[in-house]
C-alpha cells in the first residue's frame, strides 16, 4: 500500500489518534469558494485586455501590438490567447476591471507584491496577509490552502493554512510518516504544519504528481470541490516580468493562464456556481514599449473576476485614456480604481459580509471603500 492510499483509507484512524480531526473533516459554514491567482512580475494589463478603442494604444505599442483577439465592447479587446476566458465572458461568468492598482506607487516587484499581499498601505507595514485575515472573519474553519510548497505572504498569519503542490519525490513510507508525526508533536512550529501536510496530500489523491498549467487548475479544483473542499485558495504564477521579448512570452503566459482557469472551472463541477476567482498583479507595465521589445515597471493594470458567482460579461473601467497627458508620471496607465476596494467589495458580496467592515479588516490602513458598482451577482 503506498502512502496516498494509506492516507485515504486509514486517515480516519490516524487522524483521530494523532492529528487534529477538524483539519480533514470539518464542513465549512459556507458553500462559497474564493480563489486568488497572483501574477508575480507585474503583468501587462494593456495587452491582456487591450484598449483597442483608444487611439493612444497603437502609438505606444507599435511593435507589441497583437492581431485578433476577442472584442468585448467598443473599447476593449481580450488577448487572443485567452480563448476559454473569452467563452466565460460570453457566458457572463467573467468580468474585468481595468486601470486598477494597489496603493503602491513605486516600481519594485517585491515591495509591490508585499503591499498587494499584506493589504497594507506601505510595504512591510503588516505582517500577515489579507487572505489570512479573510479566513479569520469566517465562522468555523473554512480551510484555506496555497497551491505551492510554501505559504505565500497573502495567506500568512494567525489562521492555520495548508499548502500543497505536486512533487516528483518518492512517497515516504507509512512508518516514517507516523514517526515524524510523533517527533513533531511537541514542536509549536512543525506540529501544525505537519498535520496540514498530511491532510492536503490525502486530498490530492491521483493529481499528486500532475504538472503543467491545466494540471494546476485541475488540482486546485480537486482540493476545493465538494462539501469538504477548501473554501479559500491561492495560486501563484510567475514569469510576467517582460522587459524584453514580451510578445511571445506574454502569449505563452496567457495561454497557460487560460488553460489553468478552464481546468479549474471544469474540475469544480457544480461548485463553480458558488465560486469567485480573482486574478491580479502587483502593478502594471509602462504604457510605452521600451527599446528591447518589452515594457518596464508601470502602475495601472487589469484585474480579472471569474466564476459562476460573478455577474460578468462586462468591463468596468473609469478609463483614464492613453494620451501623453493622461499617463501617470508620463509613463504608466493611470490607476482609477483601487484594487483593495475591488477585492473587499467582491469578497463581501461573495461571503455575505458587511462591505465596510470587511474592507477595514482586510485593508486596515488603506482606507479601502466598498465600490458603488455591483460587481458580483
Amino acid at each position, binding site marked *: 500500500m503506498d502512502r496516498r492510499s494509506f492516507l485515504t483509507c486509514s486517515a480516519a484512524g490516524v487522524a483521530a489518534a494523532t492529528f487534529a480531526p477538524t483539519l480533514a473533516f470539518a464542513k465549512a459554514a459556507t458553500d462559497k469558494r474564493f480563489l486568488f491567482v497572483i501574477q*508575480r*512580475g507585474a503583468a501587462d494589463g494593456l495587452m491582456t485586455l487591450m484598449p483597442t478603442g483608444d487611439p493612444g494604444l497603437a502609438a505606444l505599442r*507599435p*511593435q507589441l501590438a497583437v492581431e485578433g483577439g476577442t472584442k468585448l465592447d467598443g473599447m476593449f479587446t481580450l488577448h487572443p490567447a485567452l480563448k476559454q476566458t473569452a467563452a466565460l465572458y460570453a457566458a457572463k461568468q467573467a468580468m474585468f476591471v481595468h486601470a486598477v492598482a494597489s496603493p503602491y506607487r513605486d*516600481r*519594485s*516587484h*517585491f515591495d509591490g507584491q508585499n503591499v498587494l499581499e499584506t493589504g497594507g498601505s506601505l*510595504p512591510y507595514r503588516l505582517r500577515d496577509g489579507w487572505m489570512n485575515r479573510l479566513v479569520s472573519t469566517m465562522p468555523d474553519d473554512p480551510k484555506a490552502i*496555497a497551491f*505551492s*510548497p*510554501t*505559504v505565500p*505572504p497573502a495567506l500568512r498569519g494567525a489562521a492555520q493554512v*495548508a*499548502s*500543497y*503542490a505536486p*512533487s*516528483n*519525490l*518518492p*512517497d*515516504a*513510507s507509512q*512508518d*516514517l*510518516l507516523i*514517526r*515524524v508525526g510523533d*517527533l513533531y508533536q*511537541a*514542536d509549536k*512550529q*512543525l506540529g501544525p*504544519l*505537519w498535520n*496540514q*501536510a*498530511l491532510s492536503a*496530500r490525502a486530498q490530492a489523491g491521483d493529481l499528486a504528481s500532475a504538472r503543467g498549467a491545466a494540471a494546476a487548475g485541475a488540482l486546485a479544483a480537486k482540493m476545493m470541490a465538494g462539501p469538504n473542499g477548501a473554501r479559500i485558495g491561492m495560486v501563484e504564477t*510567475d514569469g510576467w*516580468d517582460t*522587459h*524584453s*521579448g*514580451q*510578445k*511571445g*512570452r506574454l502569449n*505563452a503566459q496567457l495561454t497557460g493562464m487560460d488553460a489553468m482557469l478552464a481546468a479549474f472551472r471544469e474540475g469544480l463541477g457544480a461548485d463553480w456556481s458558488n465560486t469567485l476567482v480573482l486574478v491580479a498583479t502587483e502593478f502594471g507595465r509602462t504604457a510605452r514599449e*521600451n*527599446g*528591447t*521589445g*518589452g515594457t*518596464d*515597471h508601470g502602475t495601472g493594470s487589469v484585474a480579472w473576476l471569474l466564476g459562476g458567482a460573478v455577474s460578468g460579461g462586462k468591463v468596468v473601467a473609469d478609463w483614464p485614456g492613453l494620451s501623453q497627458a493622461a499617463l501617470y508620471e508620463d*509613463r504608466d496607465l493611470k490607476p482609477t480604481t483601487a484594487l483593495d476596494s475591488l477585492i473587499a467589495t467582491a469578497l463581501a458580496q461573495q461571503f455575505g459580509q458587511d462591505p465596510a467592515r470587511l474592507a477595514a479588516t482586510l485593508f486596515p490602513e488603506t482606507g479601502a471603500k466598498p465600490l458603488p458598482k455591483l460587481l458580483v451577482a
Partner: protein
Amino acid sequence: MNDLIFAENRFGLGPRSGQSPGRSDGRGWAEAQVGQRLAGLPGIPTRADAAAALLAYREERQNARQGQAAMQPAAMPTGGTMTITPAAEAKAPRPHELQMARREQRELYLRLVDARIGAALTTEQPFLERLAHFWANHFAVGATKATTIGYAGLLEMEAIRPHLTGRFADMLMAVERHPAMLLYLDQAQSVGPNSVAGQRAGQRGRDVGLNENLAREILELHTLGVRTGYAQADVTEFARALTGWTIAGLGRGRAIDGAEGDFTFAAMLHEPGSRTILGKRYGEGGEEQGRAVLMDLAVHPATARHVATKLARHFAADDPPPAMVTRLEQAFLKSGGDLPTVYRALLASPEAWDAASPKFRNPWEWSVASLRALGVERSPGQRAVGMLQELGMPVWRPTSPAGFDDVAASWAAPDALMRRVEAAQRMAGAVSGLDARVVAPRVLGARLTPATATAISRAESPATGLALMLVSPEFLRR
C-alpha cells in the same frame, strides 16, 4: 555555545559524519578562514564555453526559424550593425540541432552545479563557502532564460568567489560587468536613444532604446536597498550612464570587437552627456561614467546598512538584531567595504552565537547539511538539481532578481516539510553502514534532544533512523 559543532552548523555547512569532533573552538575555526582566500574549483566551464554554447544555440534557433515561413524573422537589422534578438522562443517542433544546442547549455549548467555541490560537500572552508552562497543569492541571476542557462553559475564562479575576501566594491564591479548579469537583467540590449546606434535606428524608424532593468536592481537589490531615497529619475539616469555596457559577440555588442562573451564597452550605444544621480553630477566619460556611479554606490551608507542587515538576517535571526546590524554597518563603513572586516564583526557578535534562536535551514542548506551528515562526498548535479527543484530552491534559479528569501516563513510550510521527509528517506536509503545513533550526536552536538535520540534509537531500520535524524526539529534548524 562556542563549540565546533555549533559553529559548523551556524556558520558552516553542517558537520560531516566522518569527521572527528576536533577542537572545541568554533569561533577560532571560523575566524581562521576569514584570513584565507577561497580555494578555486577545478575543471569548471568558462565564460568562453558559455558564449560558444549560446551562440550555437542562437544560430540553430535562427536556422529553425528561417525554415518556418510563418515565423517572424529572428533578426531585424538596425543601424547596419545592430540586431534585435527576441527572447521569446518559437512554439514549434524543435529540430534536432536546436535540441542539441539547448542540451549543451544545460550541460554547462549541470557541470557548474556539480562543482558547487562537490565543493560544499568536501570543502575545508565551510564558512567561506557559505558566504559564497550568500553573495550569489544577493547578486542573484537566474538560469531561467535561454540566454542565461549556461551563464548563471558562472557569475558565482567568476565574479563572486574571487572577491569573497576582498572589497565589496570589487565584487560589485565584477558582478555588474559579468555577462551573466548583463544578460539576465537585459543590460546587454540597452541602447542610449541619442547614441550613434540609437539615432541611426531612429532614422530608420526602429524603436530601440533604453532598458532600465539593471540600473533599478543595482539600486534596489545590490547596493542601497529599496526605499532608500532614490527616485525614478535616478534610475533612468543611471540606466543612461550604463548604456554601452554590453557583451562582445552577444547582445547589442554582436558586431563589437573583443573576445566573444566578454564584457565590452560599445561607445556607439552610449548615451552622450553628463548624468545626475542622487544629486551628484557625473560628467561624460564613456565607460567610466557608469563605473564612477557604481563606485559611489559601493561605499554609500545605505549600502552598508543593506548589506549589514542581510548578513545579520542570514547568520543570526529572521528579524535582524538591531545592535548587530549597527555593528556590521560600522565595520563596513569604517573599512570602506572591506569584507573580511565585516565578517570578523559578524563572528564577534554575540547575537550570532545565541543558541536559543536558531534559523530554519533553507532547502539548499538542509540538503547540503544532510549529505554531509551522511558522509556523501559526491552527488551528481542532475540528481541534486531534481531534488532541490522539488524542495523549492533550484540551484541558481530564483524566480526573481531578489534571490531566494531568507526567512523561515518562506520555507517552513506543510508541503515543504513533507517533501523534506520524502527527500530524507531517499538520501538515507542511498547510504549504507551508517548508524544514526552514532552520527546524530556528532552532527547535532548539544542540540540533540532526548526525544530525537529516542526516536532514532527506536527506528525500524538504519535508513529510517537516518531519515528521522535529517528531518528532526533540531536538524531542520541551524
